[in-house]
C-alpha cells in the first residue's frame, strides 16, 4: 500500500515538474476573476488585470466581456474603419477600455474635503489648548511680566553679556542707549 502511494506521488511530482510547452500560464483562479475578458497584453505587471494608468496606457485585458453586440462590431471593425460611425467607434473603445484619459485624469475634488477635515481638527486642537490654558495650567511666573523682563534686559546689559557680536555689542554704554 505504502509503496503504491509513494510510486503514485512520485509520478505526480514528475508530471508536475515537466513544463509543457504551450500550457496556459494563467491559473484557474485568475480566470474566475476576469471571466471571458480577452487577455491582450502584458499590462503593467504581467497579471491579467485592468487598471487605467497614464504610465501604462494599455491594460492586459479588455474591459468588457464579449457579447453579441461587441462581437458584431468586431466583425465590422475588420472592414474599413471609415464606415464606422462615431457611436460605433466609441462602443469599440468602451469595450476595450473602461475610462478615457480625460475621465480617469479628471480631478476628484477630494482635496476640498481633506482640507476641510484638517481645518476642523486644527480648530478642535486650538480649543483644547485654550481650555488647558484656562483651566489646567497655573498662571505664568512673574518673570514674564513686562517690568521683570525689562529688568532682566537691563541686568544683561549691565553684566555686558556677549559683548563682541551679541546683545551687549549693540548697546552704547556712553550714551546709555542702543547704538544707532
Amino acid at each position, binding site marked *: 500500500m505504502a509503496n503504491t502511494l509513494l510510486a503514485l506521488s512520485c509520478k505526480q511530482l514528475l508530471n508536475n515538474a515537466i513544463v509543457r510547452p504551450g500550457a496556459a500560464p494563467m491559473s484557474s483562479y485568475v480566470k474566475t476573476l476576469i471571466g471571458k475578458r480577452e487577455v491582450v497584453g*502584458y499590462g503593467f505587471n504581467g497579471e491579467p488585470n485592468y487598471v487605467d494608468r497614464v504610465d501604462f*496606457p*494599455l491594460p492586459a485585458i479588455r474591459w468588457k466581456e464579449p457579447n453579441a453586440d461587441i462581437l458584431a462590431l468586431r466583425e465590422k471593425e475588420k472592414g474599413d474603419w471609415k464606415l464606422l460611425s462615431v457611436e460605433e467607434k*466609441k462602443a469599440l473603445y468602451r*469595450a476595450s477600455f473602461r*475610462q478615457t484619459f*480625460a475621465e480617469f485624469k479628471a480631478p476628484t475634488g477630494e482635496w476640498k474635503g481633506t482640507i476641510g477635515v484638517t481645518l476642523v481638527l486644527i480648530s478642535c486642537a486650538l480649543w483644547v489648548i485654550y481650555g488647558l490654558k484656562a483651566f489646567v495650567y497655573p498662571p505664568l511666573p512673574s518673570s514674564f511680566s513686562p517690568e521683570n523682563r525689562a529688568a532682566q534686559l537691563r541686568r544683561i546689559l549691565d553684566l555686558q553679556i556677549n559683548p563682541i557680536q551679541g546683545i551687549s555689542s549693540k548697546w552704547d554704554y556712553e550714551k546709555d542707549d542702543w547704538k544707532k
Partner: protein
Amino acid sequence: MFRTALVRAQALVKPAARNVATSSRLLSKESTETDEQFDQRYEKFFSQQDIDGWDIRRGITDLWGHDLVPEPKILAAALQACRRVNDLALAVRILEAVKDKCGKREAEIYPWVIQELRPTLTQLGISTPEELGIHKPELHTPSVFDL
C-alpha cells in the same frame, strides 16, 4: 558581485537573439544609439507585417517608458499596425496616450503630432479623441476605492 555573476550566467544561458523592441545591452556603458537609430528601431518594430496586438502593446509600453514624445512616423507605423490587427480602440487609446505624453507642452506638441499623423488618420479612418468627443470626461464612474 553575486548579482553580476548571476546576470552574466543568465546572459550565457539565454539565446543570443533578442527582440528588437526590448533589446538592451547588459553593459554598464551608456547606450550609443542615436535618436535616428532609436526612431528607426521602433518604426521597424511596429512595421512588422505579422505583428500582433500583444506586441503592439509591448512596443508602446516600452516606448512610453522613455522620457520623450514619440516621433509621428513611429506613431504612424503603430497605427498601421493597429489596422493590421483590426483594433480601432487600441489606435484611439494610443492617440490619447500621446496627448498625455506631451505633458505640460500639450498645446504645442499635440496639434503638431496630429497634423503630421493626419494622412494616416484619414487613410485608415481613425478618429482622434477630439473627434470622438472623449477629450472631455463623458461618463462619471466612481472610483473602485469608493464602492
